[in-house]
């Protein structure tokens, strides 16, 4: 698995977003070149199109390395529709829709979604949030009659990988490290169990 070096100028996953272009006065001038926006999505493996990951280099749907939505670390901090995470906060219904919130500030957790994150309420309680997000993504692709590839990490980006890529990564809450904090556990086993769809 290659490590993608973080470049805050490339996209929105972890850095300051590029300044928006000045609004056009009236109709666009003929011949004006406009860079089309990519779809904004919340994590690795959730891109619907070629070139729509943070580096713009992925070959096809579902294979992107990271979110194009702006990184944030808590509930109500997402910019717009489909750009919020979920799992650590939010009610049971919200926790079923990572990356599928209806509007700005209606996401209920951090973006991107680390592999270790589990839902705290509802049908998915104790299970992986990223797998739930990927499930919704795959359903959407099937409905749209689109092919998609495997995500770079089978179960989403591990927190340590996100830190190495983004420089820092945090999802809110006071209950401690979601990966490991005590002397009597094996984080790799937990990660594997979560990846297999088991409850934490």
């Amino acid at each position: 698995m290659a490590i993608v070096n973080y470049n805050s100028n490339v996209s929105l996953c972890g850095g300051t977003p590029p300044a928006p272009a000045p609004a056009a006065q009236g109709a666009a001038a003929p011949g004006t070149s406009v860079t089309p926006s990519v779809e904004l999505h919340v994590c690795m493996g959730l891109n619907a199109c070629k070139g729509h990951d943070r580096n713009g280099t992925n070959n096809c749907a579902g294979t992107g390395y990271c979110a194009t939505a702006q990184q944030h670390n808590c509930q109500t901090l997402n910019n717009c529709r489909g750009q919020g995470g979920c799992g650590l906060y939010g009610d049971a219904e919200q926790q079923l829709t990572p990356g599928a919130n209806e509007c700005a500030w209606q996401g209920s957790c951090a973006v991107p979604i680390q592999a270790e994150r589990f839902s705290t309420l509802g049908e998915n309680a104790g299970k992986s949030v990223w797998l739930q997000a990927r499930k919704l993504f795959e359903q959407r692709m099937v409905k749209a009659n689109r092919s998609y590839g495997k995500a770079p990490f089978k179960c989403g980006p591990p927190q340590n990988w996100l830190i190495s890529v983004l420089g820092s990564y945090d999802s809110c809450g006071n209950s401690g490290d979601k990966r490991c904090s005590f002397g009597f556990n094996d984080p790799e086993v937990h990660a594997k169990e979560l990846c297999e769809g088991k409850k934490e």
Partner: protein
Amino acid sequence: MSQNLFFKKESEVTPANLGDAIQQAIEIEIATIPVYLYTYYSINRSPDQDTISGSLVQELVKSGRSVADASAIALDLSAEIMVYANKSGALIMSVVIEEMLHMALSSNLKQALAGLPDLVGKSPSVWPAALPGHEPVFWINKAGFSLKQLETFLKIESPDPLADAGLLQAPIPYKTIGQFYDMIKECIATNDLPYNTHSPQLLPGKGYYAQNNIDTVYYDKDHKPHFTNAEDSGDLLYVYDRDSALHAITCIVDQGEGTKGVPGLNPDGSVDCTAIIPPDFDGKNKKELCHFEKFAQIYCHYKTLSNKFNSLDIGVVDISKYFVTNVPLNPLTADYPANIAPVSDLLNGIYTYLFVMVENCYMKAGSTQFEIFMFGVHKSMIFILNSICGDIMKLTYTTPQGQVCAAMPTFEDYPFGLLSSPKSQLIDLYNTAVAVYPTISYLGPRILDLPDVPLKIRGKF
């Protein structure tokens, strides 16, 4: 809460004083929130295991054990401390969340039966504080986590009347919070009361209330998460008739004190830890303890763990030293030096603005209410308030008693003036605070994002 005088010499709830009685219930719920939150923030939920283990190894080797034996014992006990600290935090937060639910349920009740709830300016203003109307009076401190503080929590949630006789003269007197709610229940059940079904309430199904979040979760020794609130234990309820009103009160009492007749406090205020099993649950799936039992569980676990440490022949160990921050008793913003007071003012401004926004939710319906709650209340509570509580605790000061402590959230009602909007005053507070403490600059854009809602004019509604 400024120790309002609700009634004189009235000791029952009647249709004539029902509105005041429900307001008293709201203020009882509000009074618990800053106390529980203060103690919550004194706990370091994820202390450094290596530090705990290292100091234990040294003590154990000094007492004559081999390094190998000492290391094995220290690893085990340090993990127990880690779990205990995290679990105590999770259980206290799970209670705080339900106290906020109770405040909302009581407010729904008042909206249906007596008009708008009053929430702003109702946090205790004098410390130590007392629950309005509770007999006997017992004093409640903003204090760090300790067995003594847990005994206060247990008194608040006690299903049995407390032993000492005392008198608080003004509000409707009661001996347990459950008994007070029973008086309201009795009035509602035996009178044919009109219900206002047109005014806004905080309703279920809108995403306003979530029983669990990551702060109500703790990890066991194997790092398996445990969820301290059950999804079936309670939710917001629309109060529109007698049955729904009684249902709301039942939810509050079941979550708080639990079932009547379960073992409560000993006469000296301690808990008989052998009597709390089987635990008293508040949901039909028997997954969640009532508040009294949650606190009793932390209290008894504290004693068990202390006994383990004290059987090691390494001297008397107060286990709180491993995970409780050194905090002042009942601090006020006025006690803080100039580099902290503005941050405390901002924190109290946010805390008070939460109540301003919730009051507005009882005056606005539909998408306006939704936006105030989801983008204002949630953003303020989960992100801004929690963040600034963590930030202020990075600052230390010397108390008038000469003790060096972490600056703590004081949870005082900020006195918003009427000449400009509370939000514009909040922005001013932020500008003053960030000038002395640039660490909080990341909060500026989020404060600007908050909805701009007015103070309710008292007596207008």
